């Protein structure tokens, strides 16, 4: 199976400062990839390069096409939600559906209308009358009715309350995703997408610092609740992070066998958020 996105030494500079610094990665089909990094780490720039929205250096193929030169053909098969509230304020719900049905060959009008029927949106409503959450509902109804091979979501739930956020990801997973589709998502609310991801990419200062499947993450990283008397011995194995909870040290290990660690205390899979914090230590320092 060929890669949906493959990047080779992809770079992008703004005023000489690298935003994306010679990164290489491959995203196979049928994956849900979380691209996670602090503010200004180059996530959005990477996605924009893949969508043909910014020029870049290096090699980048999306569905086998060069986003710089073949953007028009690419957009037949790729869809994206760039940010919340980018729908124009004057747009009416029914016009939005008509428009996308009119211009997109892979749009399923009935599907979009059934999504909209499950919300408080009504056909004559304009975007400017909607709450942030409703705008995303409309946007998602439009996008999920498009049978795209690649869906890129850049902070799709920014500014939404927890009810909308949960519903958003639930819809995405239950109604949209299948083995022929690939979703790339960035968000700061890492805990909320943890359970839907198949792959994880951490990006920091324009470089990829971690790229693996969720299964590999579970095998590679272990979190141990270390009893105080064994703390020194555990520390000798070089944890990548340590914090204390109720007087007990919680240590995060990278690549240390679980059998070896279980002698220090309870072992478990770390949460992405903890892993993220450990990996990004010192980012803003």
């Amino acid at each position, binding site marked *: 199976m060929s890669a949906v996105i493959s990047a080779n030494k992809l770079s992008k500079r703004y005023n000489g400062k690298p935003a994306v610094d010679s990164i290489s990665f491959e995203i196979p089909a049928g994956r849900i990839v979380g691209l996670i990094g602090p503010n200004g780490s180059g996530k959005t720039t990477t996605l*924009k390069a893949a*969508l043909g*929205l*910014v*020029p870049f250096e290096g090699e980048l193929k999306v569905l086998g096409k060069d986003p710089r030169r073949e*953007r*028009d053909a690419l*957009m*037949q098969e790729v*869809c*994206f*939600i*760039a*940010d919340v*509230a*980018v*729908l*124009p*304020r*004057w*747009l*009416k719900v029914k*016009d939005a559906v*008509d*428009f*996308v049905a*009119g*211009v*997109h*060959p892979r749009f399923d009008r009935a599907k979009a209308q059934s999504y909209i029927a499950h919300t408080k949106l009504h056909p004559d409503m304009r975007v400017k009358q909607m709450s942030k959450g409703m705008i995303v509902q409309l*946007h998602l109804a439009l*996008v999920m009715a498009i049978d795209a091979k690649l869906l890129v979501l850049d902070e799709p739930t920014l500014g939404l309350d927890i009810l909308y956020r949960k519903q958003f990801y639930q819809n995405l997973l239950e109604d949209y995703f299948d083995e022929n589709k690939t979703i790339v998502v960035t968000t700061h609310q890492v805990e909320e997408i943890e359970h839907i991801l198949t792959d994880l990419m951490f990006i920091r200062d324009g470089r990829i610092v971690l790229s693996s499947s969720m299964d590999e993450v579970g095998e590679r990283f272990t979190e141990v609740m270390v009893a105080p008397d064994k703390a020194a011995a555990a520390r000798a194995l070089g944890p990548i992070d340590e914090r204390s909870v109720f007087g007990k040290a919680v240590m995060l290990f990278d690549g240390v066998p679980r059998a070896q660690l279980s002698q220090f205390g309870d072992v478990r899979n770390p949460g992405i958020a903890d892993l993220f914090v450990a990996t990004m230590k010192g980012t803003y320092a």
Partner: protein
Amino acid sequence: MNTFKWLLKREYWENRGGFLWAPVVVGGITVLFSAVASVAGAMMARKNRVNVQLEGSPAELAEHSAQLGGMGDILLASGVITALLVMAFVVFFYALGSLYDDRRDRSILFWKSMPITDAQMVMSKATWALVLAPLGAVAIGLVAGLVLWLVVLLGTAASGVPGASSVVTHAHPLKVLATLFAALPVQIIWSLPTIGWLMLCSAWARRLPFLWATAIPLLTCAMISFTDIFDGIEIPHDKLWYVVAYRGLLSIAPGAWLPTVVTEPTGEFNGPKDLAGLVDVTSSWGVFAQADIWIGAAVGVAMIFGAVYFRRQRDEG
């Protein structure tokens, strides 16, 4: 896929206020004013018991009818010209915002997530600015002109002006229409450099497209003009300002091409009745015989291509 049709609809949804309501409202106000004036005139005529009897030779009577008919022509045309004037303002600001407003509110990212090329997007906007908006203005203006015509007919009849029906019977509505429609292609091609320039600024400017679009040509002209304070430098001020400021910014005004073709009237002119005879239906096409319109059009088309380029390249960070 009828993408272009949907893009044109999209422009209409966004700009209904300018394309439809602005000329309708102005047309309505014009009609309202003339209605009030007609009623006032008729009331005054009645109050003063003006009783005009038409006497005279057949030739004098014919002259009277012809004058009223000419007035009818002017009324019809004035409805259209008013609407076109309004539309010129609408299109100026439409073109200036066409490729900027969606970058400012970032909705460009939604349009760019659809399978629409940048060229299609820009062309749909240019089509509105050049063709559909003026056509719509003519259509709305005609309705306004017809109503004006009717109002004035009723007003003159109610005031007791004898032979008032001549306003209609001795008018030349078909000729007025033909002249207006014949001039439309001239207007469209003539306005290309202005619309091209405004759309180029709209696609290129990061902020304040209005300032860039007006300040660049005007300051350039002013600075070049200023250099003639040095000895030995002669600036052809009239040519410079004509090419840059007039053709660049004002070609959008209805009839902006008129000064290049209007010659001394050859026939007699004794009031409105002679107007129809003086204006030849296709006289506007004289513009096509000059290089001016074609050079401007070529520059305008090039600037629209430039707008497509910037639409593609601008990073919407």
